[in-house]
């Protein structure tokens, strides 16, 4: 049986972790390599780096971080943020990432998903989606960190994304993100039943039971959280213990 995945996401700017506590044993505060190593030790099933570096010149820095992490951490590594061309995908994978996550650019230019999947394989193309509820059982897709409503129906978009060759979807609910009241169960349910590719739940984890809740109520394959883990409010190991006690298979 396939295990449900617990994925910590690290926001990285100019090669440093943006927020987070100083974990015990971490030598340099803010060093993403050290954070990734710590999450690996806690039992993270994958690590996501989300690059929020504003300038284009900053891209080299995240690639250096990826390459250093890949030498130290032997679980899959995904890099998102600022990836807008096939060359960006190639450079990120070459640096040692196993997958890239494309978001805004994929909405503006869906061909990027197809080109990426055709050249590098579907397994390394994760499409990140920010969506917000507009009516009962109706959501639309937003870009630029949830600032611009593209007016695209979420369910139509996820079907298109799958058809274009994406290997996975990371679904972030703007409504639950930051609220800490749990993942967006109705949105997850709707997306999981619309596609066959794995769906990662994102946005809303606020307490221990939220992860198990998403796995018990929807068919999502993985759950992602950022600040909850950064601030050491929960460890990945605690989340897995809770899931295990509720009969959910985790590694």
């Amino acid at each position: 049986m396939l295990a449900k995945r617990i994925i910590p996401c690290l926001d990285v700017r100019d090669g440093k972790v943006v927020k987070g506590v100083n974990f015990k044993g971490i030598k340099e505060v803010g060093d993403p390599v050290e954070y990734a190593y710590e999450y690996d030790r806690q039992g993270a099933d994958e690590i996501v780096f989300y690059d929020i570096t504003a300038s284009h010149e900053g891209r080299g820095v995240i690639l250096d971080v990826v390459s250093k992490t890949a030498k130290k951490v032997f679980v899959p590594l995904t890099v998102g943020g600022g990836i807008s061309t096939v060359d960006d995908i190639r450079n990120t994978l070459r640096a040692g990432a196993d997958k890239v996550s494309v978001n805004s650019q994929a909405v503006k230019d869906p061909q990027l998903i197809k080109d990426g999947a055709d050249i590098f394989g579907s397994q390394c193309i994760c499409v990140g989606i920010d969506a917000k509820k507009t009516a009962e059982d109706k959501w639309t897709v937003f870009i630029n960190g949830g600032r611009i409503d593209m007016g695209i129906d979420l369910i139509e978009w996820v079907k298109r994304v799958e058809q274009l060759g994406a290997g996975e979807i990371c679904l972030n609910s703007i409504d639950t993100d930051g609220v800490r009241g749990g993942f967006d169960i109705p949105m997850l349910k709707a997306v999981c039943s619309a596609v066959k590719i794995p769906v990662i739940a994102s946005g809303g984890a606020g307490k221990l039971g939220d992860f198990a809740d998403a796995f018990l109520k929807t068919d999502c394959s993985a759950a992602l959280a950022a600040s909850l883990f950064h601030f050491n409010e929960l460890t990945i190991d605690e989340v897995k213990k809770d899931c295990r006690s509720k009969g959910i298979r985790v590694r």
Partner: protein
Amino acid sequence: MVAIIDYGAGNIFSVKNALDRLGAESLLTSDKKDIESADSIILPGVGAFPAAMKMLEESGLKDVIITQAKRKPFLGICLGMQLLFEKSFEFEEYDGLGLLKGYVDMIPEKELVIPHMGWNKLEYLNASPLLDGLGEDEYVYFVHSYKAFCPDSEICAYSEYGSRVPALVSDGKTVFGCQFHPEKSGETGLKILKNFAALAK
């Protein structure tokens, strides 16, 4: 020296990173001489079966691999494992290396999430030196939509996903294949790679 065959497919650096971590000397190469003189060989790979086989045929590596894999420890990873079989039906029927009996085809269960992506548990079938030191509760990382259909005698370990997914296969001699990525499977994967590297000594 472990020769990691570089034929333009996959994230080969991660295999090298893992071997570096284990202190096993390795070389990324597409040179026949390196492959012939290596103590053991790893064939990595992600992507599509026909494209990968065509690359091996056009570069002349196919014949070298078939000869060398019978002489020294040889490990195919992910697509590299699938290439070991007689043929595949990914996109078109295409001949593989024929080092193991069986074929490769789509995961048949229609109700499952595809690709089979994530950590799945190893269930043991036949003994293998690559499984030395592993416990009862070992998980490894998979990403694939096609799987091997082969005799039980070739399966050392499998995972359950709808039905049995051959995870570690072998001819019982020098040829081994992992459907999962040992280089991305944490401590469990590193142990398997360490066991493989030790075979050459």
